[in-house]
């Protein structure tokens, strides 16, 4: 039966040299596959493990192309000579049908490889309270979509093989089935409704919740190409601003006459006390930027002329995250995530999440936005 299966690749059983007999051909294909696998694995591995320079990439590609070329050229010459003898070599339809299933297998393995090898490179556990909910939602969405993905791709490619053209077979004239249509409309609708309700709930909890009265307010100011951050001083209120006041000595355009602003602090790194809600106010100087802190599951566009904000609670200190990730150099980072010009890729600010006492210490060391000769001692008691 196996022989028949293999022979069905060929239109005519021929007296061929051993290499081109079904068994030989299978062996050839097997060797080729082995060769590819042996070459491919280090290439894939190389893709995720740091190496120097170009690696073996170009050589690999050239070797591959050369190999395929040789095989194809050989086959073409051979099939041309066969055709001139009136013999068709390959049942291309069957070749393609088998390739469909072969592709499916490789594809599923490829997808699996991603999940096995690459998941560890994606974000660690959420560093914020709402992020835990988000990750849960992501997980649910993932399992639903991967199930649908697997089912539909398997059906697609196996139908391609199973129902390949056979001489004398007649396709089934099956134009409609209202019941089936009904089910596969309603079932996805129900599943998606569940996802939507879940999603709107979480979205509301994140964006449509009143910030707590004692939330830590700070302002993030985006410009081409960096960030500036300002904390309220002892009064807990951020001073007013006007873009027309922006100058070399007043880069954020804070109103000096506003008493609320006189004690505001300019910080070089965002530092947040753990487990305290934060209301991050956002302003941009020139074009649209976006404050993106993926570890906290936080993102909000920063728009000139339209202040925005994001409310969240950090729950994992930097030190804790270093332990969790096993990377002692881990730091939280703020990136710009809306195209804003040449150095869009280089707008970075460090974010630290620390304990309350560390936060108080840090805060006391911060200078005020408007430079004053004496250190801001009174801020030691500020919250």
């Amino acid at each position, binding site marked *: 039966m196996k022989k028949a299966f293999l022979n069905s690749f060929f239109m005519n059983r021929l007296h061929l040299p051993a290499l081109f007999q079904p068994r030989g051909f299978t062996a050839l294909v097997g060797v080729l596959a082995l060769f590819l696998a042996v070459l491919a694995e280090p*290439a894939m591995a*190389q*893709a*995720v493990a*740091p190496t120097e320079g170009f690696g073996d990439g170009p050589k690999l*590609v050239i070797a591959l192309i050369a190999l395929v070329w040789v095989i194809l050229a050989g086959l073409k010459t051979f099939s041309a000579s066969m055709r001139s003898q009136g013999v068709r070599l390959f049942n291309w*339809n069957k070749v*393609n049908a088998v*390739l469909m299933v072969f*592709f499916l297998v490789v594809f599923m393995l490829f997808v699996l490889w991603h999940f096995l090898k690459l998941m560890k490179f994606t*974000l660690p556990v959420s560093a914020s309270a709402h992020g835990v909910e988000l990750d849960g939602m*992501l997980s649910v*969405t993932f399992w639903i*979509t991967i199930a649908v*993905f697997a089912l*539909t*791709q398997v059906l*697609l490619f196996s*139908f*391609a093989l199973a129902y390949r*053209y056979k001489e004398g077979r*007649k*396709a*089934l*004239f*099956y*134009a*409609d089935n*209202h019941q*089936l249509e009904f089910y596969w*409309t309603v079932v996805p609708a129900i599943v*998606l409704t569940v996802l*939507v309700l879940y*999603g*709107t709930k*979480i*979205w*509301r909890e994140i*964006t449509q919740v009143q910030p707590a009265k004692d939330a830590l307010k700070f302002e993030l100011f985006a410009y*081409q190409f960096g960030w500036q951050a300002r904390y309220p001083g002892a009064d807990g209120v951020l001073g007013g601003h006007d*873009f027309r006041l*922006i100058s070399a000595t007043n880069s954020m355009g804070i109103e000096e006459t506003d008493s609320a602003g006189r004690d505001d602090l300019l910080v070089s790194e965002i530092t947040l006390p753990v487990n305290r809600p934060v209301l991050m106010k956002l302003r941009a*100087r*020139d*074009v*649209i930027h976006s404050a993106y802190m993926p*570890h906290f599951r936080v993102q*909000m*566009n920063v*728009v*000139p*002329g*339209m202040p*925005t904000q994001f409310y969240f609670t950090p729950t994992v200190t930097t030190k804790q995250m270093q332990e969790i990730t096993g990377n002692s150099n881990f730091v939280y980072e703020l990136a710009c*995530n809306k*195209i804003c*010009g040449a150095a*869009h*890729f*280089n707008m970075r600010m460090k974010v630290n999440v620390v304990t309350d006492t560390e936060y108080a210490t840090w805060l006391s060391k911060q200078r005020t936005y408007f430079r004053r000769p004496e250190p801001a001692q009174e801020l030691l008691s500020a919250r």
Partner: protein
Amino acid sequence: MSTLAHSHDPSHGHGSHAHDPAHGHDGHGHHKETFITKYIFSQDHKMIAKQYLLSGMLMALIAAGLSLLFRLQLGWPDRTFPWLETLLGEWGKGGRLDPNFYLALVTLHGTLMVFFVLTAGLSGTFSNLLIPYQVGARDMASPFLNMLSYWLFFLSSVIMLASLFVESGPASAGWTIYPPLSALPQAVPGSGLGMTLWLISMVLFIASALMGALNYITTILNMRTPGMKMTRMPLTVWSFFCTAILGVLSFPVLLSAAVLLVFDRSFGTSFYLSEIYIAGEALTRTGGSPILFQHLFWFLGHPEVYIVLMPALGLTSEIIATNARKPIFGYRAMVGSLLGISFLSFIVWGHHMFITGMNPFLGNVFMILTLVIAVPSAVKVFNYLATLWRGNIRFTPAMLFAIGVVSLFISGGLTGIYLGNAALDINLHDTYFVVAHFHIVMGSASMFGMLAGVYHWYPKMYGRMLDEKLGYLHFWLTFASVYLVFFPMHFMGLDGVPRRYYQFTGFEFMTEWMDMNRFISVSAIMATAAQLIFFYNFFRSIRYGRVAPQNPWNANTLEWTTPVERLHGNWPGEIPHVHRWPYDYSRPGAPQDFILQTVPDEDLPLAARGRPTNEALSGAAVTERAKTPSAQPVASSSVFIARLLHRIGLRRA
């Protein structure tokens, strides 16, 4: 044989060398054609289709080339390439890509691909080629407007490509060109002359697209041959119809967004600008709203992606049915889902704007509507699967690409469920997850649809067949490459790697992706190289391809009843009348496994006449059988499933 020698100038519509210049009894007996009226300022829909196709192919090559340049930067950020400086001059100084130019490349790549390749090149080609043929008309409602539409598109392309050579650089604010970045030359140099040229080019493009769309709608509604009821139109025509309606309704809003942007850029208004301090000065513009632009842009932007996708789905429906030798499953549901997708596409635009700072309540609304639009899309996928089931599938290159469309549509569509969820979008917006999503579901699925269409209708365009084996090779290399390039990007996005980044060296958490980027770039090079096989096949077969028979695929639709040599006016005599729908493949009782739409019932054996009914398993057939003495019980879903399992051999009777 034509003795005219044409240079291979793809941007001028020149036909095939095998094109017979003599026109037969075309029913008009009018104008004598010169080289200019036949090949350049042609008013014939078939020639215009080829003009669009060749222009689209050229633009695709250019856009792919642009992507290779920036993939070079992303894959090898630490290397210098001296030839870059030779090629790009100032923009490639020191063998490294200039960061401003990187953004320009990304912008032009997106613009060219979305508009010039996948709207004009896909819709323009196949709507023009197939609508008159498949509805039974001699040409479009206004051939003159049709010609104008192509030449406006040509002019638009020239201007857009010219912007690549401008000293201050092409537009660099992303294909979405949000102000203030796109309004202020001080923000990025490309927002100077480059952006002005972009806007002029797009205004012309919009005019061209509108002319085309109006023509398509008019032809479909007004010029169908007798017997061609709307419910007998092939799904290709339905998809072009819906696409054209979307275009007519949404492109003008892009025009309004562009008009206001032009005023902001050149006349000092403040529609989109407010409270900006840039290049050392506080601008006097106040009172504008950048979000306004985003609303207006995405009001087009979202229907635009369906304008790109629906023709591909229409072509796929036709190609799968023809090559599986089965009717498309659920014709009415397919039409309904096209209409549903069209309607819904207008009310979901906000899902591109979840984190723009717009009112979060709107986020709820757009999230709900976006997940609703997933339903008709799912229905289409299931219908494709059911069409393949128990078919007798011929793997022509067109069929391979059509199956590829379904696979890519599934993969890309499912990731849309993540992004349509506003909460999940918080961490995924503007990351590589989005890049992966739209490249798979819109870019690749539509590109595959376009290629499937070219392979399937090449005999109709050029009277020759494309080489199949090169087609197989082209398909498998491209299909594999597409997944190799874009699948890993999902994970980069899940890790929070932003898009439109020149390099990833600035951030600790992004550096681990450097080597994956190299892998992606290599795969992208392979993907582009594979297209060269197609180009070779395409141009070689114009002259040396096997001469095509009149109906090489044994298909039912009207275009296959026209002569191979292609006449002005399409049919040599009267236009045939239509007597049936286009999906009578493997009809029980019929002498062949296909029945042309022009065949009346009288010409068929008794068993094959009448309304199409399923051989088995339709509700009606089951109830019918229930009336006979040896009755099966009346169909219930469990019986239905039982019989289904029996049919596919998973259960004994």
